[in-house]
């Protein structure tokens, strides 16, 4: 894949948080590399699923792509434009192509704004800044059109977030994200807070919108079955790094990294016969804290297939078969 085909091209993205100074560290500052050299790309109209356990850096990656957190290093190119070096004004203009949908539909909507106001807010801001000039009639029309598109009755325009259920609120969040006609939506666990029957409705909405509007998604979830359903490609993250990246179908049929294998075998399947017959790849221990990471493979202390070199060397993400990348010494030297 060459760079110009891809809507989003992220190279070697790193995000570092300061932990403050301690006497133990010799008075120097301590850091956590929450995202550590992540590269990924999303072609137009495709979905990249980003999966991993809590604290692996999924959300931080999304926020760094949107420049909500300043990356420590690396490059983020959206439609060929480098975002990391943009000034404030240019960044606002560039962000119209990139919107976010968040996990918690209770915390991500302003409780004092009406539903219509929330959806129209991006339109007002961009109109006010002269980036997308619209008059108020046009803004109202567009709001109604958006509500209709995400399955909300336009008569709810004057209601407030607390009057909506979780699924409906997530629809408001999606309508707001669609308002500026973005090409890329970063979805940070958008269905994790929803019940199963509502989750299916929202997942189908995401799919329909993609078919209709040619949207691209970076879709973050910790539920592997949800990721499989929605994604073209899947990247598996562990401790701030991508350890495996492949086409969705290929990843689920032939998971290569021991972590991916363990993750897949941990997902319960709603069928008692299958569930009884399954063999779990047991994984010992907990996700280690990022501050403990040493120079070896970040997964080595939990890995069932570890070798001596895993302790001292860090495997790079490389192709094991065409289009299927994995960072593990079991597959390349």
């Amino acid at each position, binding site marked *: 894949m060459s760079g110009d085909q891809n809507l989003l091209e992220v190279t070697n993205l790193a995000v570092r948080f300061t932990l403050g100074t301690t006497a133990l560290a010799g008075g120097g500052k301590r850091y956590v590399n929450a995202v550590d050299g992540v590269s990924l790309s999303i072609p137009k109209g495709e979905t990249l699923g980003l999966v991993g*356990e809590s604290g692996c850096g999924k959300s931080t990656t999304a926020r760094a792509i949107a420049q909500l957190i300043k990356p420590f290093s690396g490059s983020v190119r959206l439609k060929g434009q480098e975002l990391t070096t943009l000034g404030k004004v240019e960044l606002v203009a560039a962000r119209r192509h990139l919107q976010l949908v968040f996990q918690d539909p209770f915390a991500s909507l302003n409780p004092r704004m009406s539903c219509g106001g929330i959806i129209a807010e991006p339109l007002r801001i961009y109109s006010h800044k002269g980036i997308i000039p619209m008059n108020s009639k046009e803004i109202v029309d567009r709001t109604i059109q958006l509500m209709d598109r995400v399955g909300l009755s336009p008569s709810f325009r004057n209601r407030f977030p607390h009057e909506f259920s979780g699924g*409906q609120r997530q629809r408001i969040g999606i309508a707001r994200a669609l308002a500026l006609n973005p090409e890329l939506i970063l979805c940070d666990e958008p269905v994790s807070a929803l*019940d*199963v*029957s509502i989750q299916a409705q929202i997942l189908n909405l995401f799919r329909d919108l993609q078919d209709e509007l040619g949207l691209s998604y970076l879709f973050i979830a910790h539920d592997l*079955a949800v990721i499989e359903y929605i994604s073209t490609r899947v990247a598996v993250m562990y401790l701030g790094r991508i350890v495996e990246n492949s086409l969705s179908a290929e990843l689920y049929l032939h998971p290569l990294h021991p972590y991916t294998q363990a993750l897949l075998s941990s997902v319960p399947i709603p069928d008692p016969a299958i569930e009884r017959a399954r063999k*779990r790849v047991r994984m010992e221990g*907990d996700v280690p804290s990022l501050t403990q990471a040493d120079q070896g493979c970040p997964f080595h202390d939990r890995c069932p297939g570890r070798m001596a070199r895993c302790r001292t060397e860090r495997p790079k993400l490389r192709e094991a078969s065409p289009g299927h990348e994995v960072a593990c010494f079991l597959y390349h030297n």
Partner: protein
Amino acid sequence: MTDETILSVKELRTWFHGAEGIVKAVDGISFDLHRGEILGIVGESGSGKSVTNLSILKLIQSPPGYIESGEVLYGGQDLLKLSAEELRRVRGGRIAMIFQDPMTSLNPYLRISAQMIETIRLHQGLDRKAARIKAIDTLRLAGILMAEKRIDQYPHQFSGGMQQRVMIALALSCDPEILIADEPTSALDVTIQAQILDLIKDLNARLGMAVILISHSLGVVAGMCDTICVMYAGRIIERGPTDGLFENASHPYTQGLIKAVPRLDKKSGERLFSIPGQPPNPVGLGDSCAFHPRCDRTMDICRRQRPDPVDLGTGHFVSCWLHQEGHREVHP
């Protein structure tokens, strides 16, 4: 699992006084728990799963909640009629409970040792030394390494999965006959969830302890439970042995729920089935079947009258007019 019933819930109704009227959070629930059984209760948020289980130990805050009617029979007595003092002996002793969020269930100011030893001494009358030994043993049983050292640590020094193990150890420390686990793995990552579920299953097999497992995940109950109850709007709408329930799901809600979950073992090409609409407002549920506004096979009678459970054989019960004599023929 044996045929001996150790806990029997009969027509339990737990209601709440709400601003808009009475909320019938649990409205006429009956089930039996057998010795050594793992019973699963599934349902979506607000369906009444947790309230059911809090009611068993009378842990409902009152007001606004109250138990309107019903019986919880355990060891020949109705738990709902016990005095506060008698109940205290059952809670945490013969019937123990673990909750979704282990961090908020443990006291952050106290060492694990203090929390466990207090419980053990209270229920078993052991002296401090013996209680400490017992506490270390149960921590080991729950899979905590170096238990003799870790027992003197504070909750924040444990990860989420380890805290849940501590909670399980705390629950096990008095050799309960019944463990009520309310969404024990929902706050945990999948790999840790698998470890905790394995642990609960293993303890059930080794100690013969019966478990009531509450979960919103069909996948979790499928792998764990002998029997499953599906709840919707405060009622059990379908109940049966796990295999039968999955193979032959008979309530349109259960069928929809099974189809609505994205599954790893199925091809993802086809569109996900989704149940239209939303769970009903719990205030003012009338006499109709609570699911009828979302059901694709609604009949006239569904709007007028609530269906009673029908036995489909082998202990599989469903509350749906489609399965009632005289209505079945109309809509196969």
